[in-house]
C-alpha cells in the first residue's frame, strides 16, 4: 500500500547549516508515528520541510505518492497536511473563536463546515467553549495547546503533525493531551508526533523514529523502542 506520507532522502539547510542530512521516513494511513530525539536533532526542521516552511535542497516529500516539493505552504494545507508548530503559536490577540475560524480558512467556501468544526472542537475541549470570546493570549498553556490542536483539526487534515504538544505542561495536562491525540487518531486522522517526552509518546504511537544530528538512527515498532533499555538510555534520555 502506498503510504500516506513518504519522505525520501531529504536535505534541508538554514544558510550553511545542514539541519537534515538525508532523512527517509514514511507514515501509513491510520498510524500514530513518533519522531523522537534530543534537542537540535532536526525534528522540527523535518516537519517544517513537510509543511513547506523550509524548502529542501534535494529529496522528495510525497503525499499518497504525489510530490509536494516546491508547493506553497497553503497548498500543502489544502492537500491535507496540517502542522501544529512548536510553541503552539496561537493568535494571542484574536479570540478563541477567531483562532478556530482561521484554522478553517481552507474551508471558507463552505460556511457550514467552519461552524461544524467549531462545534466539534468545543465537544473535544469544553473548556474552549467557555472561553470562546476570550483572547487566545489569556488562556493557560494547556488550553493554548488544546486550541492549537483544534485550530489544526479545523482544516480536516488527513495527516496531523504535532511538534512537542506536551512542552512546558504539567504532567496531568500531558496525560489529557495524549489521550486526546489517541482519540483524534481513533476518529480517523493519521498523526506524526514529535516529542521530547519519549515515554509518553511511545505509549501512544504505533511506530517510532529516533533522530540524531540530522540523521534517522533508528526505526522500529513503538513497543520495541519502549522496552529496549539501551535505546531508551542512549537516545531518549529517559
Amino acid at each position, binding site marked *: 500500500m502506498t503510504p500516506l506520507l513518504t519522505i525520501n532522502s531529504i536535505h534541508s539547510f538554514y544558510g550553511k547549516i545542514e539541519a537534515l542530512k538525508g532523512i527517509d521516513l514514511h507514515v501509513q494511513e491510520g498510524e500514530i508515528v513518533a519522531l523522537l530525539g534530543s534537542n537540535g536533532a532536526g525534528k522540527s526542521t523535518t516537519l517544517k520541510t513537510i*509543511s*513547506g*516552511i523550509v524548502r529542501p535542497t534535494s529529496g522528495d516529500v510525497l503525499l499518497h505518492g504525489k510530490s509536494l516539493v516546491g508547493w*506553497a*505552504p*497553503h497548498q500543502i*494545507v*489544502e492537500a491535507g497536511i*496540517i*502542522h*501544529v*508548530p512548536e510553541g503552539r*503559536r*496561537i*493568535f*494571542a*490577540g*484574536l479570540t478563541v473563536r*477567531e483562532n478556530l*475560524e*482561521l*484554522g478553517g*480558512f*481552507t474551508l*471558507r467556501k463552505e460556511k457550514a463546515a467552519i461552524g461544524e468544526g467549531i462545534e466539534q472542537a468545543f465537544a473535544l475541549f469544553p473548556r474552549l467553549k467557555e472561553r470562546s470570546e476570550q483572547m487566545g493570549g489569556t488562556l493557560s498553556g494547556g488550553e493554548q495547546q488544546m486550541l492549537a490542536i483544534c*485550530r489544526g483539526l479545523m*482544516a480536516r487534515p488527513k495527516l496531523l503533525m504535532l511538534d512537542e504538544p506536551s512542552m512546558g505542561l504539567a504532567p496531568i495536562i500531558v496525560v489529557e493531551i495524549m489521550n486526546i491525540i489517541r482519540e483524534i487518531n481513533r476518529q480517523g486522522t493519521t498523526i506524526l508526533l514529535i516529542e521530547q517526552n519519549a515515554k509518553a509518546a511511545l505509549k501512544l504511537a504505533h511506530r517510532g523514529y529516533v533522530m540524531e544530528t540530522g540523521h534517522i538512527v533508528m526505526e522500529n515498532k513503538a513497543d520495541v523502542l519502549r522496552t529496549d533499555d539501551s535505546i531508551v538510555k542512549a537516545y531518549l534520555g529517559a
Partner: protein
Amino acid sequence: MDILVQTLADGLVIGAFYSLIALGYTMVFGIIKLLNFAHGDLYMLGAFVGYTLLSVLGKDSSGAGLMGILIVLLLAMVIVGVIGMGIERVAYRPLLLAPRLSILITAIGVSLFLENGSMIIWGAQYQVYPLQFSHDGISLLGAKITYVQIGLVLISALLMLSLHLFINRSLYGKAMRAIALDQTACHLMGIHVHKVIGLTFFIGASLAAGAGTMAGAYYGTVNFMMGFIIGLKAFTAAVLGGLVAFRARCWAGCCSG
C-alpha cells in the same frame, strides 16, 4: 462661537480625509511593518484619476448628477486600488525577507516614481477640478455648513464603517489581523498570505484614492505634490492614534484636521 463651530465643521471634513489615508497607512504597516512612504502619493493619484474621469464625463459634469460623481469616486478607488496591489507585487514583495531598510528605501523610490510619473502625465501646474460644488447649505449656530461637506463626511464615515466591519467580521479581515500577529502561523493555517497582503494594499490604496478624489473636488485644484504633505500628516495621525487601535485612528484623523 460661530468661528469655533465653523472651524470644527471644516476640520471635520479635512479630518475625514486624513482618517481615510491614515487607515490604509496603518493597515499596511500592521501587516508587513512597512512605513509606506508612497501612500500619500496614492491619494494624489486618486485625485488625478478622478480628475481625468470627470473630464471624460464632460465639462459640465456638475450636470452628471450625484450618481455620476459617486461612480467616478468608486472607479477611481478601484483603479488606484489595483495600482496599489501592483506596487506591492512588483516593488515590495521581492523584498519582504530583505532587511527593513531596503524596503523603506524602495518605498521612497516608489513615491518619487509616482510623483514624477504624475507630473509627466498631468503636468506640473495646478489643475482645476472639472466640478464645481454648490455652496448651498444650512446655518448652524451662525456657522455655514454646506450639503457637500455633510455628504463628504458621510461618505467617509460609511467607508470607515465598512472597513471596520470587514476587518472585524469577515474571514479575510481576521486573516489580516492574524498575519500582523504571526505570519508563519498563518502559512500553516492554509492562509494564502501573499493574497491577503495584496488585498490589504488594495484596500489601503483605494481608501487613499477615495480621499484624494473627494479632496480634489472639495478644494477644486489638484497638483502632483499634493500627496507629499498629506503623507506626512497621515503619518502623524497614525502615530497619534497608535499604530494599532482602529477607533483611535479615526479620532486622531479628525483632530489633526
